[in-house]
């Protein structure tokens, strides 16, 4: 069904506080790297998709207009697609369908955010409606804390065990980020430090929480014919899915998170994956919070419901474990929101094409990438493989 689509190039900026460059120049940095990686020129691009998180973040509306030159859009067909934190996956999906439809052979997909230019939490709290949700907004950490508390309560997970597992994820991800040249937060931490970090919204502590980052990511998608013509080692898109729940947070059960579960299930069906823990070689999960990452492990079928802390503490999701998760350090160490979901796809691509450098998982051939958005409302998944 449809044409096959490959990722043939990726580029990401050095993420962090990037007040050394303007917003368009930051975008251009990622685009240029992706073009170089794919070995193509702006002239070759047949379509451009871009997206950010809320435009209030940087105070500029419809940024595809502002970034016309940086995105190599001039004279080209363009689309602008956004879905909150899951934007990175949504724009990748748009690029996929664009190529799959036969309307283009080479599409540039770019996500970006410059969070240091605005107030991240103030911006994100405007996703909430002004009557019911916003008055009680405790920012993103508040939402994720509520979700973590619901999950622990539902599955009778002792707080100490969850706390230990969260700290373990924090330590291993921060370690991984040291091997990622693009990562924002690069610190060596120990279990004690993670466990005793200052509380933000109990039980979430400072080292359980992602940073705010400036950064951009670009990927280049190609049809099978074009990928073969260009001749770089591609990552084939094997499956994808996107689901969203209702707007009001209290309306669906976030401890079993239907949108995350179904988005992955849909992608698995396309990719023919039955036992993700065994079949996937690596997963790049959108994990702004350590506790939430454990809920994703369960939704994605990596372990039974309520058992993620046990699996984590057994080291199953370490870089040396059965299914390494976020060997890039993940969103926990780097979070330019509009780019974050696309960075997951770029990292998954690097893994299955053997280009992930010091963070390479040996022999990785099948990888999951993911992003989530809204007030725990949306989840998108893309699976890439070394083989078509």
């Amino acid at each position: 069904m449809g044409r096959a689509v490959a990722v043939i190039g990726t580029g990401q900026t050095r993420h962090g506080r990037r007040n050394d460059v303007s917003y368009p120049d930051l975008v251009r940095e990622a685009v240029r790297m992706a073009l170089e990686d794919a070995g193509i020129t702006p002239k070759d691009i047949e379509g451009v998709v871009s997206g950010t998180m809320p435009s209030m973040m940087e105070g500029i509306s419809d940024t595809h207009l502002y970034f016309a030159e940086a995105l190599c859009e001039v004279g080209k067909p363009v689309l602008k697609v956004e879905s909150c934190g899951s934007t990175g996956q949504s724009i990748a999906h748009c690029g996929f369908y664009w190529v799959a439809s036969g309307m283009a052979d080479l599409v540039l997909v770019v996500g970006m955010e410059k969070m240091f230019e605005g107030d991240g939490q103030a911006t994100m709290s405007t996703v909430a409606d002004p009557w019911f949700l916003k008055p009680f907004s405790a920012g993103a950490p508040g939402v994720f804390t509520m979700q973590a508390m619901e999950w622990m309560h539902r599955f009778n997970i002792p707080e100490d065990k969850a706390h230990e597992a969260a700290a373990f994820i924090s330590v291993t991800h921060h370690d991984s980020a040291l091997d990622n040249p693009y990562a924002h937060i690069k610190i060596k931490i120990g279990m004690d430090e993670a466990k005793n970090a200052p509380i933000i919204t109990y039980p979430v502590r400072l080292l359980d929480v992602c940073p705010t980052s400036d950064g951009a990511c670009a990927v280049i998608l190609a049809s099978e014919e074009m990928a073969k013509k260009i001749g770089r080692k591609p990552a084939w898109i094997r499956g994808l899915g996107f689901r969203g729940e209702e707007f009001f947070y209290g309306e669906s059960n976030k401890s079993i998170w239907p949108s995350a579960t179904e988005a992955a299930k849909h992608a698995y069906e396309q990719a023919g994956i039955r036992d993700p823990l065994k079949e996937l070689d690596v997963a790049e999960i959108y994990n702004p919070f350590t506790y939430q990452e454990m809920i994703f492990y369960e939704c994605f079928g990596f372990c039974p419901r309520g058992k993620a802390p046990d699996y984590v503490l057994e080291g199953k999701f370490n870089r040396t474990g059965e299914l390494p998760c976020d060997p890039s350090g993940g969103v926990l160490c780097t979070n330019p929101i509009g780019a974050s979901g696309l960075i997951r796809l770029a990292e998954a691509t690097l893994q299955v094409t053997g280009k992930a450098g010091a963070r390479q998982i040996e022999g990785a051939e099948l990888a999951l990438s993911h992003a989530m958005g809204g007030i725990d409302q949306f989840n998108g998944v893309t699976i890439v493989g070394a083989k078509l």
Partner: protein
Amino acid sequence: MRKVAITRFAQSAGVESGDNLMDFTYRISKEVLDKAGLKRNEVGCVMIASSDIFHSGLSCANAVDWDGSGAFMIEGTRAEDSMFALIYAAMRILSGHFDTVLVTSIIKGSENPDNDTLTGFFADPFYMRPLGINETTAAAFQMREYMQRFGVSEEQCAKVAVKNLGNALFNPYAHMKKRVTVDDVLNSETVSDPLKALECAPKSEGVASVLLASGDAAERFTDKPVWIKGFGTSMDHFNLGDRDLLNGQLTVAAERAYRMAGIRQPRKEIDLAEICEPYAFQELLWCEKLGFCPDGEGGKLIDSGETQMYRAFPVNPSGGVLAMNPYVSRGLYRVIEAAMQIRGRAGEHQVDKKVRTALAHGTHGFAGQCHSVVILEG
């Protein structure tokens, strides 16, 4: 290649609605599904078009738009412009992965500040924004250049407003409708010289929804499918100073759509056009760029009367964007109006001639930075 049909559609009127955003969205999406006899959970994909915070007051508008669009646990996403949404939806069907896509575009102008308060946020923070450049001032630059370079007169531009606001009298969904004369237009308040108040589009409400289906699936929902034969978009430079304001990217966007639809002589092969003209003169300029008349002869085209509702080549029989300007949705409104004309069911503003092929156009950004063109056929 698969075929993509517009099967059913619905639109809201432009006047202020007391509904909240969620209910407003639901009402129109539901109307389309009911007309099609399709259950919400049978929809293959939902495509929302809405603007991020500036045009809604809520960031990541897909979050609040999701429920009313019928997207609960369905494949879907949101585009920043309704033409983008329609084109992306069509590509999802062309890909073979989906048989139906419900496209819903949402904006509640009555909740928003002035259009130009919002279009001002398209501007970069360093150069254009401090100078107060917005969509209207950019259009004023463009209009002056148009008049100077081609000798198009203020009267000719004003005639567009006379025609479109008059056409709107017959369109129950239009927001602004009145019988005005060229003098009325020229004597209306100067907004941004040379633009007059009656030459600038209002700020309207507008939820519009369209059910697209693949060729095979379409007959389940309608006996009068309207086919999407071609589409194209193109982007111009950002800075006004980098551009030729009279020779932008509309020609390129149109060429893409024409090539896909197999159109060689647009003026002959297209029966009717719904054009996005937030400023009166733009209808003339866009007609040139779409190949309906030679460059610089947009003024002659309106003088000829040919673009009147009951003449040979009707342009904006709905009243166009001058009569109804729900910013994000305005492109999709053009599509729906064109589809209604093709189906012969436009009611009081149905044109006299048989409409087989129609063009719908959308634009956003300063002085037409980004254009979209869609070709429809009965």
